[in-house]
């Protein structure tokens, strides 16, 4: 199973533990990746301040065109902002001949053209639908033995199209957690936004959003929170101190990428493959207790 992996800017910096764990886990599941040559940023969710809609469409169309030129693999965008930008522009181009023409007339500046043949996927979609729960379960050598995990879906990883999961009541992450023998706890805030890309400039407002999410997860018995988005991971993990100072709470709950949990359950190296040393709130003790090490 070959795919393009469009990991984007965050997964080389604040989301490095996502990319580090995603690669060995995917490889173990028989997936192979190619990089989109000379890819550019997707524009994320704040570029509108400087860019118009067409400029943001062109950013994503360039990546799609570069991929299409090289091979006909699906593109996996593990960062939810990359995913939403790319899948949205892809659909819009596929559904409108006039937009496709307009975008292609601009891509022609570099001799590029996008014919609309590529599919954009989220990593959860590929794990769930292409690899499958049974295959994932069969790779587990260190089951998580009922570890209570809050599978925090966030917002952009399933929206706006809901191609592989419900946009209102997503279940795929929970099914993947169950395959690792973890126990996903139900918590209503699992699809509430954490503030995403405007967290930093709107911190006073967004701290409250994250407090509510953490509070809800803890209240429902979670020992650890899993995520599939670098913004979610950043906002939920890095600001717990500040939230505690602001609201008098005492949060100290590890935030972990789903792929890191998979690496642990697959019995892989906790540092090299699971990249647990990159986590600021250490998850090692909780995980070691769960797998019985």
């Amino acid at each position: 199973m070959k795919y393009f992996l469009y990991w984007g800017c965050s997964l080389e910096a604040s989301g490095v533990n996502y990319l580090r764990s995603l690669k060995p886990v995917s490889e173990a599941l028989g997936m192979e990746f190619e990089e989109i040559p000379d890819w550019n940023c997707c524009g994320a969710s704040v570029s509108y301040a400087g860019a118009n809609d067409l400029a943001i469409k062109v950013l994503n169309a360039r990546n799609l065109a570069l991929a299409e030129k090289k091979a006909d693999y699906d593109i996996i965008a593990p960062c939810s902002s990359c995913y939403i930008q790319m899948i949205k522009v892809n659909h819009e181009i596929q559904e409108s001949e006039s937009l496709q023409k307009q975008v292609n007339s601009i891509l022609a500046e570099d001799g590029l053209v996008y014919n609309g043949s590529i599919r954009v996927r989220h990593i959860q979609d590929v794990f769930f639908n292409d690899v499958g729960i049974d295959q994932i379960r069969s790779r587990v050598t260190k089951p998580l033995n009922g570890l209570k995990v809050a599978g925090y879906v966030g917002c952009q990883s399933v929206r706006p199209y809901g191609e592989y999961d419900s946009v209102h009541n997503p279940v795929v992450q929970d099914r993947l957690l169950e395959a690792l023998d973890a126990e996903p706890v139900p918590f209503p805030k699992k699809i509430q936004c954490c503030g995403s890309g405007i967290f930093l400039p709107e911190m006073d407002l967004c701290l409250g959003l994250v407090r509510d999410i953490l509070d809800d997860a803890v209240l429902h018995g979670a020992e650890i929170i899993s995520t599939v988005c670098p913004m979610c991971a950043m906002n939920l993990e890095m600001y717990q101190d500040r939230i505690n100072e602001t609201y008098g709470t005492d949060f100290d709950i590890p935030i972990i990428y789903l792929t890191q949990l998979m690496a642990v359950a697959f019995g892989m190296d906790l540092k090299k493959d699971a990249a647990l040393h990159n986590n600021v709130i250490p998850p090692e003790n909780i995980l070691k207790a769960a797998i019985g090490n």
Partner: protein
Amino acid sequence: MEINKSYDPSFTREVFENVDSGKEIRMCMQCGMCAASCPLREHMDYPPRQIFSMIRAGKRDLVLNANSIMMCTSCYTCQVRCPRGIPVIDVMHGLAHYAISKGILTRKDTATFGREFWQQIYKTGRIDEKDLSRRYFFADGIVSGIKKSLEMARMGIIMLLHGRMKILPERKIKGIRSLRSMIDRAMQTGKGGTGA
């Protein structure tokens, strides 16, 4: 109350012609699902439903100066719930872009952050998180830059120590020159751009 005053459609026309996705508000039936769905609703002066209504009523200043148009976290909750299928987020982003291009910076920090973000894409083709934060902190000058940096210094050091920061500066993508000319053309020919 001025009951004899008729609606002034000029602002509605301005929005339809110049704002990306502006025409989409025609489908709005004022149900308020967007307002109820927004994570930051309690901080908004006018939620999307009211913004759309005020566009129809010609309330130009109120709409373009509303804090809500620059407060969207892009979570798509309103959009997936809208019973009329309005791309609410696209409209809010379009309005924010239009207001900012007119020099209106109601949520100044967010507007600055977004513009620095975009400028960095234009410069290198990618985002360098540490450089973006630095530029954002120092956008208002050196004094407030130092203050903001100090406030965030502890988190920065923690991220650095945990390998969550890219040490080397981001290099330009190979096709940066053609990417820039593509962007320039898109900005001139698209709505809400410099050529609009």
